[in-house]
């Protein structure tokens, strides 16, 4: 099937999310859709899958005009989407998840699982999507769960497949397997749209690349005739420096020492076992690893958000026992949490209210009873200005900011105070390329000034670009340590548990 989008426009109030977008995908072709967060990718795909109605423009499938009023209609017309966050029921089996919503039935509305299973097996062998149809979703690794999502849309006879940031949750090895899968799908004649903000991925698998910026298609490139740099500039709309300047600095004394740290879950299963970690002055220590291997728990323990079961955490040479987040903050340890929307900011609070989230009680902002809003406002203005947060007021709520600006606000809040140690978790997740550059520079500058930085990121590229030393987490242990110039492939293997 051939898909053509014709002059699609969509506005939300004064914001033009999409304007006059033309886009074509042919049978047996992979189209890369590249764009920063907020460029309008999601809106466009929501239009294509029937979630939104465009203000103007049309959708043509095989030169026939189509209007989708809801996702089901889009589905019926062969459009299927694999979302970034999987839509699976963890306690259902693979087959049950696949048929959810279109359950085949026999007499008396009994679900026909046998037949469904046959069809799942057929699809899985046809496209080389190896999966056990009886296995429960919660027992499967993320890469396999993604396969289930793909089978789910193939089960609904999708011919036009949309992948939204499909590699965000995968290990490097799983990414390789995923690329094989979409190449197979392409060979089978599917039309594929691959949405991402990772440049090297589009260069590797796509046949054509469309770049989206501020709701418009700003360029069409062919992978063979373009470069990383050119794509990045199209995306951001100005020259960007993809390499972070990171001159070598001699590391200083130990700031953070973790000895034999273990944490058990409520069911007494080990989340972290016998960790030993040291962080020095003037050092960026990168924590690499696939999400869910204990990094989150480790950082929660370091910041006082989680009780440790045994072992020792010492900041600046002093052991801290059962410290609260506030006590640790008062030591000059700043924490950029991995989920800025849930943890780092309160979406419904104004920027001013967010700026004082962990200091509202200090003399600067209160007299122990009443808050000093004018002083908080001044601080908010200062940080907004200094850290280049794009907003027209400090009184709007934080969820009105784009992801990049939210992160800049958060980083501004944490780094604008006296700081001895920075714990940064996923500092650039969901952030546009322009802001990534800015945030990386801030982190490196902090380290050059004599601060120790603990950087936790699932983006291996980011870890390699910034870290002076890299440790790899796997199943709650540090299974390998690498210098900054290590081979990414070897680190990738360690992330998959091969040491």
């Amino acid at each position, binding site marked *: 099937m051939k898909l053509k989008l014709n002059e699609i426009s969509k506005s939300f109030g004064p914001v033009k999310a999409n304007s006059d977008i033309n886009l074509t995908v042919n049978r047996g072709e992979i189209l890369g859709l590249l764009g920063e967060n907020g460029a309008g990718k999601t809106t466009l795909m929501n239009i294509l899958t029937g979630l939104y109605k465009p203000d103007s423009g049309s959708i043509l499938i095989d030169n026939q005009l189509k209007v989708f009023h809801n996702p089901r209609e889009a589905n019926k017309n062969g459009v299927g989407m694999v979302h970034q966050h999987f839509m699976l029921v963890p306690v259902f089996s693979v087959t049950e998840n696949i048929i959810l919503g279109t359950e085949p039935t026999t007499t008396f509305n009994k679900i026909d699982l046998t037949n469904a299973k046959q069809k799942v097996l057929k699809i899985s062998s046809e496209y080389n999507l190896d999966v056990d149809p009886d296995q429960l979703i919660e027992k499967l690794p993320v890469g396999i769960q993604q396969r289930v999502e793909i089978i789910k849309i193939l089960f609904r006879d999708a011919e036009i497949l949309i992948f939204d940031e499909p590699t965000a949750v995968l290990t490097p090895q799983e990414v390789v397997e995923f690329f094989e899968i979409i190449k197979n799908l392409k060979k089978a004649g599917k039309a594929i749209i691959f949405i991402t903000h990772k440049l090297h991925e589009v260069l590797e698998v796509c046949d054509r690349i469309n770049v989206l910026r501020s709701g418009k298609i700003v360029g069409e490139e062919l992978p063979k005739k373009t470069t990383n740099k050119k794509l990045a500039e199209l995306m951001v709309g100005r020259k960007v420096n993809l390499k972070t300047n990171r001159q070598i600095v001699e590391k200083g004394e130990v700031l953070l020492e973790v000895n034999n740290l273990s944490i058990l879950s409520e069911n007494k299963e080990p989340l972290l076992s016998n960790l030993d970690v040291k962080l020095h002055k003037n050092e960026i220590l990168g924590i690499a690893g696939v999400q869910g291997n204990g990094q989150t728990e480790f950082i929660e323990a370091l*910041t006082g*958000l989680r009780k440790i079961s045994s072992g020792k955490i010492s900041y600046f040479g002093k052991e801290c026992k059962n410290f*609260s*987040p*506030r006590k640790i*903050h008062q030591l000059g340890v700043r*924490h950029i*949490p991995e*989920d800025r929307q*849930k*943890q*780092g*900011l*309160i*979406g*419904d*609070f*104004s920027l001013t*209210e967010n700026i*004082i*989230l*962990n200091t*509202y*009680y200090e003399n600067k902002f*209160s007299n*122990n*009873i*009443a*808050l000093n*809003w004018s002083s908080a406002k001044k601080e908010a203005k200062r940080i907004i200005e200094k850290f280049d947060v794009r907003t027209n007021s400090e*009184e*709007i*709520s934080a969820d009105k900011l784009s992801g990049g600006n939210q992160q800049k606000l958060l980083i501004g809040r944490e780094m604008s105070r006296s700081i001895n140690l920075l714990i940064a978790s996923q500092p650039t997740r969901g952030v546009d390329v322009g802001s990534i550059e800015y945030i990386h520079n801030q982190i490196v500058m902090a380290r050059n000034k004599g601060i120790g930085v603990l950087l936790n990121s699932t983006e291996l590229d980011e870890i390699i670009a910034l870290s002076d030393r890299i440790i790899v987490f796997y199943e709650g242990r540090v299974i390998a340590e690498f210098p900054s110039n290590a081979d990414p492939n070897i680190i990738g293997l360690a992330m998959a548990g091969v040491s």
Partner: protein
Amino acid sequence: MKFFIYLSNYFSNRETIQEIFLIPVIATLLAIFLGLLLLIVSGSSTQIALTALVALFTGSFGSLSAISETFTAATPLIFAALGIAVGFRAGLFNIGAEGQIILGGMAAVVIGFSFQLPFAIHLIIILLSGALFGAFYALIAGWLKATTGAHEVITTIMLNLIAYRLLDFFLRMPAIQKEGRNDPISKSIFETAELPRILYLLDPNLRVHMGFLIAIVAVFFVYWLIFHTTIGYEFRAVGKSLEASKYGGINPAITIVLAMSIAGLLAGLAGACQIAGVLGRATPGFSAGIGFDAIAVALLGRAHPIGVLFAGILFGALIAGGRAMQVSANVSLDLITVIQALIIIFIAAPILIRKLFPWILK
């Protein structure tokens, strides 16, 4: 759970004037209209419906005595609803105002009849004791939530039931029960403990009392507490995001207990004001469902103190007007309950109002 998430979004700090005023106003007008329609559909003549409508307005705002009745009915509603609003801000759905009112009222009665004190001092002590007992009763639910995670909706409902039975028991205790009576009724409080009537000099029968003025002071106090103090900031942070407030160094357990106690304190004041300002003694039904109406008032006022003040006066007006309606149009007081329920339905479904009046709410 989804409902609670909806609620917490509903009390955002940054609302437009339309959302704060227009939706409640439209909801109220619509509810009154539908209420009268119900009258007609159920067999009353249009004449009666119109008489009822007129009585509703004259009975609530048509004369000085009507206004006095409105404010009298509004007073305990405002206190209790302020407490519920504080709870909402901290992410707590406190159904227990009724029980807290009962406990506050019980304490007030005991203080009121047990001894005589100079006028102002007795009054202060009676109000304080009501506030203290209300706070203590709510604290139980807060403490249970903070330590065991027991949901406050469940615990406060249970505490309400306990409070009802406690009151029954209390009213039959020899030390409490009025001498020479067999029915459950307490002794009357001394005159020194009574809240003076504001318009006494104008007409001794105008019942509106000092409690109404104290309620207005409470409105501004709660406004200051929620929006201008560190405690209020902690309440709102915990109410909006437990994760983020922990990250910010706030102790959610302490915050929850504190918020619940302040909610109970205000509800306890409502109970004490009813005893010291209107009733003068306790009877089994003295709380009269005020604690439940107050939930509606807090919702209608969008958990904002100023909104609560106006919503409280509105509900007071419905009660006062409803009585007049019953007298002059012979329409059952239950119609008022229907109207109150309809208001809440429209408030809980702002989308409905948006759909019905798209030209007002863009």
